[in-house]
């Protein structure tokens, strides 16, 4: 899917595509992000874990400008994130986002949901956008649903459509904000399977999740958040098998 980077190069030697330096954010007086610094390499899969309310969702939403932050700086794909609308829109073109509550457009068919942004933002001709959309639906396993409305689909199917919709813009980075938290248990697997195949395709991914086994399986790096700070980060085996920080141990003992 990505033409502009070579998957042969080992992860350490690739360039950073997302760079966050000392991000600070307050909701009123509440300090929700404290000096968060994180760089993500091209093609890297970063999974963000942490207790609820630890700021991990807020952090991932600052990356594409859905949340404002007061201090620090973010660069995505070489574009600095500023208050300038054109910068924010340029970054959003390169980042796809999948939400906890799907957020499909209920008044449009699945096909329209997926083709809307490519047609109007990327200015693709309708035929090309539709062909691409049908291929993506095939990839997420629900090609037969193209002409239905979101309300006629199950939660798992809706979330897979949401993934296809984000991919339709051919983003370089995918952001997943708790993609399975709103799903019934029997539908979590179908969505995680789609995300897993995506992780193998070489696209850069930031995933906020509570699914530990999934995190261990797909992540190149795991980041642990608590109280708005990054407490620890490392490969899955470092973090799960040899946690260094006390709070990491506590968190893992509560979850595993």
């Amino acid at each position, binding site marked *: 899917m990505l033409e502009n980077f070579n998957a042969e190069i080992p992860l350490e030697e690739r360039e950073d595509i997302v760079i966050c330096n000392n991000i600070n954010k307050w909701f009123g007086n509440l300090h929700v992000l404290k000096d968060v610094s994180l760089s993500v390499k091209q093609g890297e899969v970063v999974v963000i874990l942490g207790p609820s309310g630890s700021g991990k969702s807020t952090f991932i939403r600052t990356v594409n400008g859905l949340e404002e932050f007061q201090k620090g700086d973010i660069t995505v794909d070489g574009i600095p994130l500023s208050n300038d609308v054109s910068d924010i829109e340029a970054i959003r073109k390169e980042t796809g986002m999948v939400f906890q509550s799907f*957020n499909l457009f209920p008044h449009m068919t699945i096909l329209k949901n997926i083709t*809307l*942004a490519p047609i109007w*933002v990327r200015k693709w001709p309708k035929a090309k956008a539709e062909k691409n959309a049908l291929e993506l639906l095939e990839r997420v396993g629900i090609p037969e649903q193209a002409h239905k409305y979101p309300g006629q689909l199950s939660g798992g199917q809706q979330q897979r459509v949401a993934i296809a919709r*984000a991919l339709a813009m051919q983003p370089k980075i995918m952001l997943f904000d708790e993609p399975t938290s709103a799903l019934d248990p029997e539908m979590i697997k179908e969505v995680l399977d789609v995300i897993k195949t995506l992780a193998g395709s070489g696209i850069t991914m930031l995933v906020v999740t509570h699914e530990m086994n999934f995190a261990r399986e797909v992540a190149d790096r795991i980041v642990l958040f608590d109280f708005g700070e990054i407490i620890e980060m490392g490969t899955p085996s470092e973090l799960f098998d040899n946690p260094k920080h006390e709070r990491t141990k506590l968190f893992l003992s509560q979850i595993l």
Partner: protein
Amino acid sequence: MEHNVLNSNKHEPTKVAPPRPTTSVLGWLKANLFSSWMNTILTIVFGTIVFVLVKNSIDWIFFKSDWYVIVANFKLLIVGQYPNEELWRVWICLILISVLMGLSSGIWKGTMGHLTSFMMGIYIIIICLPFIIFETRVWLLINIAVIVAAFLIGTKQSKFKIATLIGWGLMLPIVIVLLSGFGVFNHVGTNLWGGFLLTLLIAVVAIIFSFPLGVLLAIGRRSKLPIIRYISIGYIELIRGVPLITILFVAQLMLPLFLGDSIEIDNVVRAMVGFTLFTAAYLAENIRGGLQSIPRGQFEAAEALGLNATFKMTFIILPQALRAVIPAMVGLFIGIFKDTSLVAIVGLTDLLGIGKNIISNPAFLGTQMEVFLFVALVFLIFCNMMSYASRRLENSLGVGKR
């Protein structure tokens, strides 16, 4: 899909039909009207009241009243003092509308078809009324023929879709030009426009022009830019804080004082502008309600896809917001349609204004009941058509079954 196996047909238990309710007229009466002493008394009391009301009404409508006042002034009530020799222009307008209605009902069927058949029903009733002059009957017959012909064309050729929509869009300016003349025909001043024609024109203009204004004000009131937001709030609260009749008086009496003699604005245009400005403020609040009902996730999803503010509003937010407030908007439009009767107070002769003039004519003394009933009937028919269209629109757009 594997999880569907659980509720597939193979495991379904044997079906049992629901019990049939046993219905007979006597059984129904006993169960619903005379099931206890209390209900029996209530039934008798209200039955008596309804009987007396219906009997007296029928008695008055068919035997005591004198409908000659409507017969003699039918033309006045419908088109006011529009000159007789220019009436063909009004008929041409109606025929153009008939063409569009016929085409639309042929292309889209459904609601449009029902409304068109209903209009044809009204035409036929008018043709059958004994006092209608020959010329009117001919024009109405032409209208019916045109509707049927256009309907047949519409069912066969759906390629007229865009042409029909453009036609509806151009209808209002064409009607205005035809009615007033504008150099092409003899000029007919708006002081001669009146009756139901004027009511309809003011309402349609107010509804059409207030809509974009209302959308802009609603979006403006939610804007992040303080100047736009405060201008919108100021406008909406100012208009909503003032009675409609005050706005009409300002438009009719104060505006000439402000503008001086140099600028002449037509009385009817002033009323139309007043109604438009008034409707826009209320419409803006309705639409704002719709905008607020859209979950934040919809805005975020649109933004995350890189859609700019205009695309986000046009494709994602407004379609959902407007759909959610169709009942409220149609309610407002029906209200405005009826409120047009207020122009009678500032000296225009709409349906009610003409009615009042007729009553004060010594030749028709004591006929206010007949005139007011007729006026009420006309409003009733059109308001019901509007709310019927709204109900059908809600169903077809699936409001409330998201």
